[in-house]
C-alpha cells in the first residue's frame, strides 16, 4: 500500500506531469506525420530523457509511443497513408469508411478502442508481470541463456519475411554486439585498431540510425503525400459505446492477441494489428464486408495495436528482453536510470513499477481528449511539409546521438552507418527488428552462456538437465526448426492433394 501511495506522489509530481503532457503532444504529432514512426519518436526522445528523473523519463517513452500508435491512424483514415506501420493493416478499411462519409466514426473507433486497448494491455501487464517475476526469481544463468535465445528465435519466427533472412538479421545484430572490449576475455574484438570502437557500438546511436535516419533516407525515394482534403468532422466519440456493445468479443480478442504479440520478442504493434485484422476477418459473421468500410476489423485491430505496447513491457521489465522495438530502446533508458530490468525490480522497486502502471493508465486516458484535439487540428498538422520536417529530424539524429553517447562525435558516424544498413535491410526484406534484438541482447546471451559454462566447469549438461532450462531449450529448438517443419508439412499436403 505504501508503495502505491509512493507511486502516486511520484507520478503526480509537477515535472512528471509536464513530461507526460509534452511527450503526449510530441507523440501525437510524430505519429500523425506519415513516415515518422512511434519507434522513431522514442529513439529521438532518448537524449532528452538523460535530463529527466527516472519516472519522468520512462513516462515520456510510454506516453509518446501510445499516442503515436493511435495518431498514426489519422492520416490512414483521412488520406489512406498510414502514419505509422502499426496502422497499415487497416488503413484501407478506415479510408473506405471515410469515403462512405463515416470519417468521424472511423477516427472515433481508432481513438476509443486504442485507449481501451491500452488500458486492458496495462491491466494484463499489472497482473502477469509480478506473477512471472515471482516465478523468474528461481532462474539462474542457464535459464536466462535459453530465455534470451528463445527471444531471439521468436523474433525470427514472427518476422513478416523469410525466416532465413530474419535469422541472418539477428546474427548480424549479435555480431554488432561483439564489437568492443566488453567480452569474457576483455580483449578488443573486431575493433580494427580503432579506439572509438573499443567501447563497442553505442546502442542508442545504432537504433537512431536504423529507425530514424533510415526513415529520412526512405523519404527521399518517396513522393510527398498529397495535401489533406478539406473535411468537416462531426462528433468523434458518437456511437462508440454502441460499437463497444456490438463487438465485445472482437475487442477482447484484439486486446488479448495484442498483449500476447507485444510480449513476444521482436513483434510489436504493427504485427499485432496485422494478425488481429486477419483474425477478425476469419472469425467474422460477415467477412464479405471487410475491405468495404466495415468497422469490425477496425475495432479489433485498433484494440490490438495499443494493447501490444503494454505487452511489450512484460519481457522488457522482467528479463531485459525487449518485446518490441520501442522497449528495445526503453531498456537502455531503464538501465541508465538505475531501474535495471529483472524480477527483483518488482520487489525492490515496487513503487517505481506502480508508477509505471499509473503512467500507462494516465496516458491512455488523456489520449481521448488530446486525440480529439489532434483530429480537429489534423487539417493543419498534416499540412506540415515533409520536405521541411525531415531535414530537422536528420539534424536531431546527429545531435541526439552525439548527446546520448556522452558527447562523442563518433556516434554521428554510427548513425550514418546504421542508417545505410537499416535502409538496405528493409529494401531487401531483412527484418530490422530482428537485428535490433540481436544488438540489444548479444551481451546478455554471451554473458549468460559463459557464466553458465564456468559454473558447470565446461559441461553442457546443466543447460538441459534443469527442468525449466530443458523446457526453454525444447521450445528454442522447436522455434529454430519450425519453418522447416511448416515447409515439410506444406509439401506433404501438396503431395497428398496431387
Amino acid at each position: 500500500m505504501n508503495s502505491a501511495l509512493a507511486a502516486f506522489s511520484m507520478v503526480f509530481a509537477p515535472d512528471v506531469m509536464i513530461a507526460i503532457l509534452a511527450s503526449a503532444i510530441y507523440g501525437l504529432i510524430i505519429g500523425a506525420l506519415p513516415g515518422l514512426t512511434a519507434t522513431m519518436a522514442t529513439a529521438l526522445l532518448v537524449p532528452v530523457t538523460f535530463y529527466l528523473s527516472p519516472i519522468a523519463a520512462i513516462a515520456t517513452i510510454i506516453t509518446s509511443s501510445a499516442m503515436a500508435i493511435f495518431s498514426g491512424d489519422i492520416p490512414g483514415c483521412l488520406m489512406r497513408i498510414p502514419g505509422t506501420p502499426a496502422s497499415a493493416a487497416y488503413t484501407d478499411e478506415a479510408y473506405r469508411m471515410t469515403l462512405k462519409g463515416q470519417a468521424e466514426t472511423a477516427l472515433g473507433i481508432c481513438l476509443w478502442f486504442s485507449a481501451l486497448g491500452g488500458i486492458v494491455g496495462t491491466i494484463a501487464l499489472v497482473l502477469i508481470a509480478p506473477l512471472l517475476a515471482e516465478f523468474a526469481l528461481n532462474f539462474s544463468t542457464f535459464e536466462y541463456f535459453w530465455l534470451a535465445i528463445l527471444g531471439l528465435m521468436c523474433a525470427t519466427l514472427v518476422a513478416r519475411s523469410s525466416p532465413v533472412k530474419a535469422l541472418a538479421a539477428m546474427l548480424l545484430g549479435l555480431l554488432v554486439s561483439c564489437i568492443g572490449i566488453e567480452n569474457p576475455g576483455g580483449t578488443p574484438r573486431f575493433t580494427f585498431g580503432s579506439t572509438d570502437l573499443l567501447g563497442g557500438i553505442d546502442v542508442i546511436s545504432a537504433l537512431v540510425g536504423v529507425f530514424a535516419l533510415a526513415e529520412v533516407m526512405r523519404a527521399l525515394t518517396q513522393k510527398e503525400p498529397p495535401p489533406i482534403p478539406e473535411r468537416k468532422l462531426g462528433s468523434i466519440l458518437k456511437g462508440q459505446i454502441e460499437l463497444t456493445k456490438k463487438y465485445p468479443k472482437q475487442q477482447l480478442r484484439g486486446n488479448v492477441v495484442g498483449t500476447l504479440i507485444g510480449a513476444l520478442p521482436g513483434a510489436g504493434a504493427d504485427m499485432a494489428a496485422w494478425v488481429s485484422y486477419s483474425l477478425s476477418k476469419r472469425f467474422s459473421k460477415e467477412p464479405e464486408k471487410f475491405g468495404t468500410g466495415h468497422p469490425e476489423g477496425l475495432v479489433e485491430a485498433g484494440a490490438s495495436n495499443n494493447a501490444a505496447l503494454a505487452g511489450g513491457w512484460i519481457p522488457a521489465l522482467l528479463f531485459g528482453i525487449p518485446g518490441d522495438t520501442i522497449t528495445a530502446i526503453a531498456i537502455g533508458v531503464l538501465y541508465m536510470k538505475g531501474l535495471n530490468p529483472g524480477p527483483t525490480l518488482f520487489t525492490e522497486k515496487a513503487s517505481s513499477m506502480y508508477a509505471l502502471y499509473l503512467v500507462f493508465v494516465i496516458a491512455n486516458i488523456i489520449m481521448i481528449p488530446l486525440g480529439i484535439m489532434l483530429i480537429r487540428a489534423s487539417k493543419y498538422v498534416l499540412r506540415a511539409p515533409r520536405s521541411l520536417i525531415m531535414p530537422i529530424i536528420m539534424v536531431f539524429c546527429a545531435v541526439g546521438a552525439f548527446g546520448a553517447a556522452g558527447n562523442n562525435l563518433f556516434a554521428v558516424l554510427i548513425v550514418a552507418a546504421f542508417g545505410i544498413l537499416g535502409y538496405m535491410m528493409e529494401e531487401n526484406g531483412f527484418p530490422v527488428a530482428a537485428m535490433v534484438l540481436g544488438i540489444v541482447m548479444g551481451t546478455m546471451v554471451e554473458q549468460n552462456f559463459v557464466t553458465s559454462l564456468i559454473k558447470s566447469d565446461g559441461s553442457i549438461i546443466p543447460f538441459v538437465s534443469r527442468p525449466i532450462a530443458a523446457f526453454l531449450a525444447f521450445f528454442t529448438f522447436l522455434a529454430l526448426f519450425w519453418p522447416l517443419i511448416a515447409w515439410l508439412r506444406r509439401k506433404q499436403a501438396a503431395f497428398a492433394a496431387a
Partner: protein
Amino acid sequence: MKLPDRITGLILMLLGIATFYGGSRLPPVPGQPVGPDVFPMVIGAGLAVVGLLIALHIGRGFEDAAEAEVERFGGPDREAEEYARRRRWHALLPPALMVFYYFTSERIGFIPVAAIMIGALAYALGANRRLILPVSIVGAIFIQVMFVKLLRVPLPAGLVPMPW
C-alpha cells in the same frame, strides 16, 4: 536499393567466414572453458550457413506469401516503385550529410553546418525554394538552443558563437 538474393547471400556468407576467422584468432582466457573467441565463431558459422541458404533462395516462399498478403490489402503502387527506383541514389544524401557533420562541425561550428544540412536535404526533398533559407537558419538555431541551453549538450560554436 534492391539487390538480388544471390548477392546479399554471398555478402553475408563472406562476412560470416571473415567473422569466424577473426574470432578464431582471438586469444583464449587461461583457465576458462570459453573465451572471447567462441561467440564470434558461432555467429560467423551461422552467418555463413544462412548466407548460403539465402543465396540458394531458400525461404523465399515465406517472403512471397507475405508479399501476396500485402497485395491483397491494397497492393503495391507501380508508379511509386518506379519513382523509388529512379531516386535510389538520393537516399544516400542523409548519411553523407552526417559524415559532413562529423568532419566539419568542430571547425566551422554547429549552426552553419546544421543549416547547410537542413538546406541541402530540404532542397533534395523538393521544398518550397523561398522557405529553404529561413527554415535552415531558424531550424539550426532552434536545435542549438534546445540542446545547448535546455539539455546542456556542448555543441561546437566554431566560427559563429552565439551570444547565449
